[in-house]
């Protein structure tokens, strides 16, 4: 946490998106929207800074710790900047039996990074994923916590990297919902 209390306010768009989630819960249970709030902020900025987490806590009338402890518990939250695209490869038993090790090796050599690292151009971060519940289509790659690529092979990986490479240069981050 930075020592100087930098005041950051959430944008109106982000507040609006969070409000939609607050409405799903009883009025006195705004805390229920913490997970969604963090996801919305991460979607907009790519990661969760301490300042923005504090801003979320303030917005939901919570002590900052209630937000930090959630952000540090769940694996999809990024508390440090990562690459433009997160590539998560499942390494659990069904994917493992179907060759996910080779997929990781291929990604590591294509990207020139090891598991957990980010490419020097800031485009890709490589992650280990825990079971993504698509075991009958193993091995599985998930991009940016959303899109599944099933039964991936080194050839499919090459195509995906090529597509993302081109798309990543053109556009910035997408919607904040």
């Amino acid at each position, binding site marked *: 946490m930075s020592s100087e209390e930098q005041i950051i306010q959430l944008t109106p768009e982000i507040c609006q998106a969070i409000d939609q989630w607050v409405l799903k819960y009883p009025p006195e249970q705004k805390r229920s929207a913490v997970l969604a709030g963090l996801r919305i902020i991460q979607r907009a900025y790519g990661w969760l800074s301490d300042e923005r987490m504090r801003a979320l806590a303030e917005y939901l009338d919570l002590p900052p710790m209630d937000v930090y402890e959630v952000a540090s518990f769940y694996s999809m939250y990024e508390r440090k900047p990562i690459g433009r695209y997160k590539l998560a490869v499942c390494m*659990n*038993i069904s994917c493992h039996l179907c060759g996910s090790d080779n997929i990781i090796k291929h990604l590591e050599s294509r990207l020139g990074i090891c598991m957990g690292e980010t490419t020097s151009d800031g485009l890709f971060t490589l992650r280990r994923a825990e*079971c993504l*519940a698509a075991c009958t289509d193993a091995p599985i790659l998930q991009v940016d916590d959303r899109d599944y690529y099933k039964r991936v092979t080194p050839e499919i990986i090459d195509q995906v990297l090529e597509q993302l490479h081109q798309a990543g240069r053109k556009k910035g981050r997408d919607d904040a919902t």
Partner: protein
Amino acid sequence: MQHNIVCFRTRHLDQPWSLENYRSVGGYKQLERILNDKIPPEHILERIKQSALRGRGGAGFPTGLKWSFLSRGKPIQKYLICNSDEGEPGTCKDHDILMLNPHQLIEGMIIAAYVLGTTVGYHYLRGEFWHAFQRCEQAIKEAYQEGYLGKNILGSGVDFDLYNTLGAGAYICGEETALIESIEGKRGWPRFKPPFPANYGLYGLPTTINNTETLASVPVILQHGAKWFAHLGGKENGGSKIFSISGHVNQPGNYEIPLGTPFSELLNIAGGVWKNARIKAVIPGGSSMPVLPGEVMKRTRLDYDSLSKAGSMLGTGAIIVMDEHTCMVNALACITEFYYEESCGQCTPCREGSGWVTRLIKRIEAGQGKPGDLDCLEQIAKGIEGRTICAFGEAIAWPVRSFLKHFRAEFEYHIEHGCCQVAARVR
């Protein structure tokens, strides 16, 4: 054998998830009948009990009995929760229900809510299911538009509001009390039980939690009758079940077939073991369940009681097949590493023990095992089992103990020779 007649009954259609297609197979007819005829909730509860429907999320608890725990008459807010936090390695059936037949889950939830006397429901999807979440958002929107959800459903005076919520990456949230904590916006730390959710659940109020497949089965049970459903399977093992068969088979996939189907039949449906290899081992219910030798599985039927007799459990119905070239030390290392990564850290035996067993197994795999390591592994596994707040402790202990029970010689070979028996044989 009849396939895809319960949760996957729209699967053969183009755009199986659409409201129109769901209606074409009788969708929302049961809800309409119940509300129009004012069928008493107790009658429906009785049907569910007669159907022998058991929870499809892993524990296999009788659904009717679970529903009867919630005291309907209590004049306070009660909640219904659907658990779509699918993540037990090998399991991927609920995702298909959400993508292919979301309206059936919604109808099942509305009927369950009517029986339980709850007016608010939450459908919790794991965070990685973004696309399934979008599909369910759309389906809920349609259900509101058609008057199936909201206040005064179809003019009956019954209210039910349903909301989709998302997790953010935590296997433990599949445990029902951890899931409740997660909906409350907290870390997914399981709660001590008792009190059980039926008394103290979401926001401290009475709550019933069911798995996706369980709830989605309800409309079909009511359409065709409890007897019909019960007779699909065997005694106390009613209905059909979606089996996710993965690993070393030619056609891995989700197959909805009657409970009690012989494993060998499912293996045939899945195209047999790949590459003409022989079968070595099978985990029949998701990776936390005890492994069984392939030969034992070939003689076993796929239902709760048969698998329990064979020394394992039906669990989520996720069947992981391993061929003769699989190194069991390597496979176990992969399994325990998952539980090590996903331990929520609340209970010491699980938090520390999952790391100890994983490091020990990896050491053995790397050829640096020592005499006594296997006894040590057993000791640690026993030390975790039964000593944690939730069943996660068993989820680490059972694979370790069952792999050692059935494949001990392979572990011993690794320790003695410093290399893999399977790899040596292939060479």
